[in-house]
């Protein structure tokens, strides 16, 4: 019999039904007999990803990071995408799928985070190595024809559309770095301005998150997956809200599109 291999999940069958679980175990812990009521959400998340319970400071870090990331706000691309699904009455799964597809991207999204994790992995806390790595992202890269993902157009974890490091980013970095005083976050906080100078742009929330995931001991794929997940609550809430408001209150950018090769003459679309 072909079987699925797992280090995360085990089950025992009900006596009357081999297709139903009587008990479920996550990394050895009885989910419904032991964990339920005793474990916090962020601890359970960590347990699933790492296979071990987090230390108290790690659980607190993940909890507070989840708050900081939960709602990027309705102007953010992935939330805007989810609202486009919500306002038209698309399925709720489509709302989240829209948020995931857009939130996966290289500008503040999952891929930005993944690339930023790569810098942490390569450069650790070596300021010179960081400076070289960030500068390399700003050099004109050879177009990579062989990857699904295009080459990064900016240093990951930094905001090419930013003018200065925004208050929410600074406050999140300041707050989280206090939870792990000797960690990557604290190093980032101490060297933020030097790193921003090397990148030529301000630190982004993805950059803060990458340091937090590094302090949580996550690998880049784990961090990317968690980042995608943690940013969904705001997308869900805003999609539902716009479904309620309806299309009449949802901007269409009525005067925003300029067609430069209109065969029918110089009109604005509507």
């Amino acid at each position: 019999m072909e079987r699925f291999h797992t280090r995360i999940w085990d089950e025992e069958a009900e006596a009357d039904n081999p297709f139903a679980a009587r008990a479920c175990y996550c990394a050895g812990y009885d989910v419904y007999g032991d964990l339920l009521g005793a474990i916090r959400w962020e601890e359970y998340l960590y347990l699933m990803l790492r296979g071990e319970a987090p230390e108290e400071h790690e659980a607190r870090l993940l909890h507070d990071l989840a708050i900081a990331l939960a709602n990027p706000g309705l102007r953010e691309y992935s939330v805007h995408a989810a609202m486009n699904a919500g306002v038209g009455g698309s399925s709720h799964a489509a709302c989240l799928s829209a948020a995931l597809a857009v939130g996966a991207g290289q500008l503040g999204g999952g891929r930005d985070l993944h690339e930023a994790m790569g810098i942490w992995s390569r450069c650790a806390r070596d300021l010179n190595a960081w400076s070289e790595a960030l500068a390399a992202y700003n050099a004109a890269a050879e177009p990579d024809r062989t990857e699904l993902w295009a080459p990064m157009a900016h240093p990951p974890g930094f905001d090419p559309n930013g003018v200065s490091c925004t208050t929410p980013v600074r406050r999140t970095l300041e707050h989280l770095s206090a939870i792990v005083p000797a960690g990557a976050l604290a190093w980032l906080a101490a060297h933020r301005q030097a790193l921003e100078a090397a990148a030529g742009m301000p630190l982004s929330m993805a950059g803060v998150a990458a340091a937090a995931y590094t302090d949580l001991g996550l690998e880049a794929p784990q961090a990317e997956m968690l980042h995608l997940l943690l940013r969904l609550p705001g997308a869900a809430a805003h999609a539902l809200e716009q479904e309620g408001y309806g299309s009449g209150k949802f901007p269409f950018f009525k005067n925003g599109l300029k067609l430069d090769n209109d065969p029918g003459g110089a009109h604005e679309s509507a």
Partner: protein
Amino acid sequence: MNPLERLSELEDNWHTEMGAWFGGERVVYRGEDLLGSLLPEMDWMALYLFGITGRRFSADELRALNAIWTNTSYPEPRLWNNRITSLAGTVRSTASLTLGVATAVSEARIYGHGANIRAIDFQLRARERVKAGESLLAVAEEEFAVRRSIYGYGRPIPVEDERNAPMLKLMAECGLDQGEHVRQALELEQLLFEKYQGRRRRLVMLNITGLDAALAADLGFTPRQFHLFMTTCFLAGMPPCYIDAFEREPGSFFPLRVDRIKYEGPVRRRWKD
């Protein structure tokens, strides 16, 4: 221009040559009238390719490109992307969620679109280097050494890709079997086969990804254009899988007993004893 100036200039100001809708009147598609001139001229595939490349393809080229999509559409519910449509059908999810996400899943590293983009990249790079005087076999061996495989070559089992012969026949009928990249793709398979005397057969056989990529290279596709074109190449195989599962009792597609789980993790333990 600094970021603030750039964003301010772009606010409510998206210039495009790709198209627009003029409500109640007309639609412009890449500078042409979709409903007035393109609708009578183009079928859907021609329009899709026009959208991707901005170019028009001949009837024979369209027939061959259509065949790429046909030859990759297997209604086989065990294949990973298709299996998602069967799982969605068996739990009665919606058709669009199902086909949309199964299409996204097809953008995989070891098969599907990750393999497609690497396969056309290899054929294009190899052609450039051969034209510059290098031997095709040397280019391929370097690829082997660097990437441990040549995308477009290799099969999970050592049998010929069942799609190659019918696809080559159709390409010949369309006059598209003698392009420089297609000839290169076939020549390399032969060179590798001769070099390894039948050994490493599983690794060196031209697969349909390689053949399709070579055809696309001959037709002037860039890797990104080929990626976009191939995004829906598995699509026609998916509705049969979805329908099959949807129309039966819910949960009837490959139900799993608890003992199908092979647990390899930590032993039973108590939370924070």
